[in-house]
Each structure stands twice: as C-alpha cells, then as structure tokens.
C-alpha cells in the first residue's frame, strides 16, 4: 500500500511540475486524437446520415456490418492496419507505420463505426415532420442533411464524445502502429503501459490521473448533454 501511495504522491508532483516528457506525451495524445476525430467525423457524419436517411437494398446488412466493427478488439484492428501499412504491405510506400498518421488510421477504424451507428440511428428517429418542413421551405438535399444533423446536434455530440472516449483510452492499436517512440508517438496509454512495465509507477500514475481527469470531464459532459436532450425531447 505504501508503494501505491508513494507512486501517487510522485505522480501528483509530476502533474504540477509538468516536465517536458509528460507534456510531450499529453500533447502527442491530443494531436493524435484531434486528427483521428477529424477523420471520424468527416466520414462518419455523412455516412451515418446517408445510411439513416435512405432506404436501399442491403441497408440492414450494412448496419449489421457497422455493429460488428463496433465490437472488434483494438489489437485486431491494429494488426489489420499494421499489415497494410508496414513496409511489405500495399501502402508501405507511404511510410505510415510508427507515425501519428498511421496511429490515426487505426483510431479512425475504431471510432468511425460508433459515429456512423449513432448518427444513422438518430437520423432514422428524426421526426418525419422535420424532413417535410425542410423540403417544403425549399431545402435541397445537402441543406436538408446539414439542418437535420444540426437539429440533432446534442445526440451527434454524444456520438462524437463516445467515439473520443474509445480512442483516447485504447492502447492495443496505438502500441502496434505507433511503436511507442519517445518524443514522437508515445501517448498517454502507451506510456502508462511502458512505465508500469518498467516499474516507474510515478509517471504511470501521473498519466493515469490525467486520463481519468479527461474521462471524468468527458462523462460529465455526456451526462449534461443527455439531460439536455431528454429535456428538449420532453418539451417537443
């Protein structure tokens, strides 16, 4: 128990002192997740809207496929992406392995199904009067999509935050695709994994506290948004 408390005390000191290495790990994490989220939302929102809005042959199968991707283990995703971007793989020439961009590809595959599935469900459950109202005041297809997504912005935000929560906390694919290179591809989760293995509990705890803090803020925000969404649905 003393060992844990000592590690905790040193970890808290590290947070307040924010040494260069810790700061680099945190900023790398934030840069990586920002890049991943940009890709996830850019692809996930339009795809989710199209799947939710239209009826087409194979729609059920597509939804089923998305649900399967939701439950894929992170190391499997890491393995698959590794096979494609390693030197011998089809995209080896782009030198993505052990880079932030390579890690972002893995996180995109992790987080994209969440946004697609949530967005499709939200769009399917949109009030049918919304579509008629938008069309009858002259909205084109694109304008209808943008406005529909904006009308369900709180639910979309839940999807985005849930996706973010998944990618920021994963270690399997980040380790395989990033290599945990100090000053370059070392993120909070890969650093915790390494430092704990080395026995350097203090840094591991410091990063763990930061990750917990991010998680708490995330969940608190989600909870606030859900309450607001329920309130707005009640008022509607």
């Amino acid at each position, binding site marked *: 128990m003393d060992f844990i408390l000592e590690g905790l005390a040193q970890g808290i000191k590290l947070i307040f002192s924010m040494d260069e290495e810790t700061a680099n790990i945190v900023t790398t994490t934030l840069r990586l997740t920002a890049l991943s989220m940009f890709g996830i939302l850019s692809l996930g929102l339009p795809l989710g809207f199209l799947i939710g809005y239209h009826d087409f042959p194979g729609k059920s199968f597509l939804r089923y496929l998305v649900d399967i991707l939701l439950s894929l283990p992170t190391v499997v995703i890491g393995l698959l992406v590794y096979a494609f971007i390693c030197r011998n793989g089809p995209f080896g020439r782009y030198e993505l392995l052990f880079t932030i961009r390579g890690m972002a590809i893995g996180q995109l595959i992790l987080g994209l199904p969440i946004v697609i599935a949530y967005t499709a469900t939200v769009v399917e459950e949109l009030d049918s*009067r919304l579509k008629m*109202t938008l069309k*009858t*005041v*002259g909205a084109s297809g694109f304008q209808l999509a943008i406005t529909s997504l904006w009308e369900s912005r709180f639910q979309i935000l839940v999807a985005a935050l849930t996706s973010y929560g998944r990618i920021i906390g994963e270690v399997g694919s980040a380790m395989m695709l990033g290599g945990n290179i100090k000053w370059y591809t070392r993120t909070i989760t890969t650093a915790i994994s390494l430092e704990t293995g080395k026995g350097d509990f203090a840094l591991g705890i410091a990063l763990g506290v930061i990750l917990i803090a991010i998680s708490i803020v995330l969940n608190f925000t989600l909870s606030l948004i859900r309450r607001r969404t329920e309130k707005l649905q009640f008022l509607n």
Partner: protein
Amino acid sequence: MKHRYGTGDVTLNIPSLSIEEGDVMGVVGPNGSGKSTFLKILAFLEPISEGSILYKGNKSSGIETELREEITYLLQEPYLLKRTIFENIAYGLKLRGKNFNVKERVCDSLLRVGLNPDNFINRPWYRLSGGEAQRVALAMRLALRPKVLLLDEPTANVDEQSAQLVKAAALSAWKEWGTTVIIATHDLTWLHEVSTVIVTLYKGRIVGKEAENIIQGSWEINGDFAVRNFSDGQIIRGFCCETENILAGSISPSKIKITTVEQPRSDSLNIIKGTVVQTTLDSKKESVYVFVKVGESMIKVLMPLGQMQKDKIYPSTQVWISFSPNNLNWLY
C-alpha cells in the same frame, strides 16, 4: 395521377383535375379519404406512382426541388426547428439567399398571424402554445411569399382565437399576392365563406365538385335498390345496378329538398325526418347549408337563404328532407 405507398393499394386515383391560378380550393372528405396525401403530392413532398402533374402547363417531374420554392405546405401538426422564432421564420429566406430585409419580412409575417414581434422574435421554439406554434409555422411559409399555399387541416389542433388568425392570415396571402390556396379541412363554414371551388374526396377519388354528402355505412342490395337503414329506423334507397359491394352513397346538397311540414310517404322519393343542428351561410350563392341529423348521420342540404328565413328553419327545428333515389351516386 395515381398514388400508392410502396406496393400497397392505390391511395389516390384522380383521372384529371385542374386548379386555376388564384383559386381558393377546399378539399373535403371523411378521415382516410386521402386529403393529406393529395396535398403532399401537390406540394411535391410525395411522389406519384403513375401519371403526371403539370405546373403552369409544364411537367413537374425532375424539377420538384425548384418548384418547392414556389409551393409550400403547412402540416396539420406544426414542426418548428430547434431555434428561436426569428431563426425559424428566416430559415427559408436564408435558404433562398434572401439575406436583406430579413427582419422586416419576419416581423411582417408574425404580424400577419397575430403575433407581436417584440414578444416572439427571440423566443425559443419550446415556449409556445399549440396555437402559437401553428401560427409561427404559417408565418414561416408566408415569409416566402409562396405562389401556392397548401394548408392541411390548419385549425384542427388549435384554439378558437388561433384558428381565426390562421384563417385570416391564409386569406391575406390570396388577397394581397394572388396566392393559390388549397385547404383540406372539416370546417365547412370557413370553406363556404372563402372557397372558389370545393372538391370532395372519398377513398382517394374525387366524388364531387362541391361538398357532397357521403352516406357511409351498411348498404344492402334489395332487388333493384340499395337500401340504407339509419339507427332511428328510417330507410333511404337508391337505384343500383351494380352487384359490387357499395362503400357509400353520395348526393349533392342541392338535390335535396327540406321543409318543416311533414311529407306524405311516396314510392318515388326518399323522405326522412331529422333535426337541424347547424346552418352555414354560403354568401356567394346567397344560400345556406343546413346540417340535418338523421339517426347517426349528418346530411347537408343547400337551400336559398330567403326560404330558410321564411320557413323558420333554425338549429333544433324538426324538418323533413326528401330526394329522388335517382340522385344517389354510388361509391365502390
């Protein structure tokens, strides 16, 4: 044109219909007759399954999005976007790139529906009563100065004051801009005051070019006649050659006579007794629609205003109505 949802039964079957620019058309019919679907099709919100719709003489297929810039539809239950009233009303204007004088247009639209802009412009969508929401939804459409305004039961779910304001605002579009207005409603009083033409829909077909009587219920074939029993024991009959199941009989209100004097039985006429429950003025024709309750049914009779006053036919008066069996039309 014909319409069906998916591969289901035909919901609308209209061989031909012409609506003139500047008309105020009333669409009446019992629930399930296809009024809402008809309006949505005219608003190009619902595709037809067969046939074509011409707008200003031109085929409409393929250009529905452009046509919806001139034609707008007010839903029976209003839906407002999750934003302020100002942003709701301005939404359509901004879609069209009309970014100047937006505030003036929004305020004008609110005033037309009887809402004070100072009190409502910044209000969020959820702080409105049902009547206010319907009025804001109408203001949203009026702001666009539509060429065609389609109203689906606009006063069905609102309070009396809101209903009057909605009616007045819709009519103002017709009077000031020459907007063609098409109204689906059960409010026959209003329709007869404002409509230039009325069509009656039944089971997706136009069965009359005025507010026809649709006598539903169980019609039994008896020789050459179809016979309808009312709950008070009275009977009417009409000549019927078809052996198919009859869904309803229809008769024009102008083909029914009404009197306060008991009529002797006749083999050549249907004569039934009822009680007047409502009268509605048709000011254009100087006539009155008299609604007579017979058993469980309501039958409309059109009579000259002068005669109504002379015979003292008012609500609660007991009357006899009569019509020839030949004047009944059949709906299958």
